[in-house]
């Protein structure tokens, strides 16, 4: 059974008159890859710094394997950090950087050498031990930072946007590498990022944060397919939100009026009443673009088309001006599959692929938002 490694109980943090974290509870399982995801200023970095001990919580408790570490200084916490800008010691060689933590533990010379060499081999930098950090590329420096943190065999590894300074291709490579390391070492990873794609592809679980409050905690699939609220829906992935009104509610199904089109859908988890406003959430890949003479769907016209290689992404303006994003896979049997700009079409979706959310106050549901 899963065991809880790190527990945050009602943790609060205030900077001046700004509450960054407000009585936050979070349990992190032993051995999992958990990601703290949110826009800048959502408190994710503060949360990480509280775990590391660089900041002290103003309230609440932090328990590591049942032991209260809320007031322990960073050097007494059996966890290590990979910093955003690596924070390698510039006056030391790569070897000495990695050996630093073991020297602090006063390990014998022989053991230090073996473990440092092992850690460097693990990140494929065995030949770079004698170099200084400034002689390495960004990706190599990142690997050194990881080796330096894992050489101490911590229970928990904290990673503060470690890939944000790398270019796109290198980032992809490092994502795969980090996953491999996490599997091989069996260390719990707490990963901070504002990149939702990174969060989805790497994590076992994702914590979506906004203004110091957890919006949703779940697997990447749950977060993407069944967002708990409009914030998560918009922040994670691209989203079409259609305003709808409930016309008829039965035990298992509901009928929704979306732009005058009536669809009978599965009944959602939240309580519903007839006449209530809801949001119908559809990912671009859920959208079907039909011929203009199709017998159903919302009429509109194509205003943008982007050839993406494996998919064709298009933007469609419905007749009332609502923008719809569609992402369709190429149909191998239809070589003429493409749109002209201005071409009239109808927009529909596959039954059961929609996700319903109650409408939220002060929120214009038809507004299209792209992730931050």
């Amino acid at each position, binding site marked *: 059974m899963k065991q809880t490694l790190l527990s945050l109980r009602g943790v609060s943090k205030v900077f001046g008159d700004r509450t960054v974290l407000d009585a936050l509870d979070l349990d992190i399982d032993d051995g999992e890859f958990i990601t703290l995801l949110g826009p800048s200023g959502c408190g994710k970095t503060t949360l990480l710094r509280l775990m*590391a*001990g*660089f900041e002290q919580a103003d309230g609440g408790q932090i328990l590591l394997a049942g032991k209260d570490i809320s007031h322990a*200084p*960073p*050097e007494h916490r059996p966890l*290590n*950090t990979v*910093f*955003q*800008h690596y*924070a*390698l*010691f*510039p*006056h030391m060689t790569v070897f000495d950087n990695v050996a*630093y*933590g073991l020297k*602090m*533990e006063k390990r014998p010379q022989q053991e230090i050498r073996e473990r440092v060499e092992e850690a460097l081999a693990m990140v494929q930098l065995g030949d770079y031990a004698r170099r*200084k950090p*400034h002689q390495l590329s960004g990706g190599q420096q990142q690997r050194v930072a990881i080796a*330096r*943190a894992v050489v*101490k065999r911590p229970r928990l590894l904290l990673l503060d946007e470690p890939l944000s300074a790398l270019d796109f291709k290198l980032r992809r490579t490092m994502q795969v590498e980090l996953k491999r390391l996490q599997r091989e070492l069996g260390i719990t990873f707490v990963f901070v990022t504002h990149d939702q794609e990174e969060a989805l592809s790497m994590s076992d679980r994702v914590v979506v944060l906004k203004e110091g409050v957890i919006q949703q905690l779940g697997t990447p699939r749950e977060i993407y397919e069944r967002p708990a609220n409009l914030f998560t829906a918009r922040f994670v992935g691209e989203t079409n939100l259609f305003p709808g009104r409930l016309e008829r509610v039965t035990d298992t199904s509901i009928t929704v009026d979306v732009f005058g089109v009536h669809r009978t859908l599965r009944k959602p988890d939240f309580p519903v009443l007839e006449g209530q406003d809801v949001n119908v959430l559809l990912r671009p890949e859920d959208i079907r673009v039909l011929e203009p003479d199709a017998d159903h769907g919302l009429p509109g016209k194509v205003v943008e088309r982007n050839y993406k290689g494996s998919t064709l992404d298009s933007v469609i303006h419905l007749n009332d001006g609502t923008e719809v994003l569609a992402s369709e896979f190429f149909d191998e049997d239809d070589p003429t599959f493409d749109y002209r700009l201005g071409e009239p079409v109808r927009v529909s979706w596959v039954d059961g692929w929609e996700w319903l959310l109650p409408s939220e106050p002060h929120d214009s549901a038809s507004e299209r938002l792209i992730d931050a």
Partner: protein
Amino acid sequence: MKHWLPRAYLTTVYALLYLPILVLVVFSFNSSRTGYRWGGLSLQWYESLFSNHAMVQAMWNSLWLALAAATVSTIIGALTALALHRYRFRGKRVLRGMLFVVMMSPEIVLAISLLALFLLVGLQLGFVSLLLAHVTFCLPFVVITVMARLSGFDESLPEAARDLGASDFTMTRTVLIPVIMPALLAGWLLGFTLSLDDVVVSTFVSGPSYEILPLRIYSMVRVGLKPEVNALGTLLLVFSLTMLILSQWILTRSKR
């Protein structure tokens, strides 16, 4: 386009800068005593310089004083810079501003006020009064040099060290000080040079028990320019050039 014009301009500027120094060096090897007539190559002024006991004593006094003043002001200055950089406290801005006051205020004002202070507390004028005075005017330069280095300092380095198990003290010893070492050396050299050639403040706060080189030279040239002064000037020139080259070498070697 007249190519010779900028060239001539530069030549004039450099000639004005370096010709006097060149003359000084050349005449320090001149055997003729009277005036500036060339009387053949000779090392006699160096000999007479080193046989002048009071002169050699003043040289050592100056060196010791500069060493002590540079070291003391580097230690105090580095700690001040660290405090100003790391902590928030009441009166921080005032403290920082006061450093600039010391740096900007006319030296003569500093000299008179220090003398008044020493007389008031009954301090015997000599090595201690000189040291206190020199540390006072060296301090702001050290603080500013170290603070400049600290402002470019990656704040996550101390955190990384703590994270890896270093106590605050160990972190300071193994990470903070090595990283700011070039600034400490630069500050020290600056203090050393400032102390070595200070005349104004030293004139006021030195006593008969501790004569230093700049004052000795000053009293020598007041009764006419002796050729020994040329020799002394040449030695000082070689010394400061060596220091300069050394500091540049240290700085480029430790860069990043």
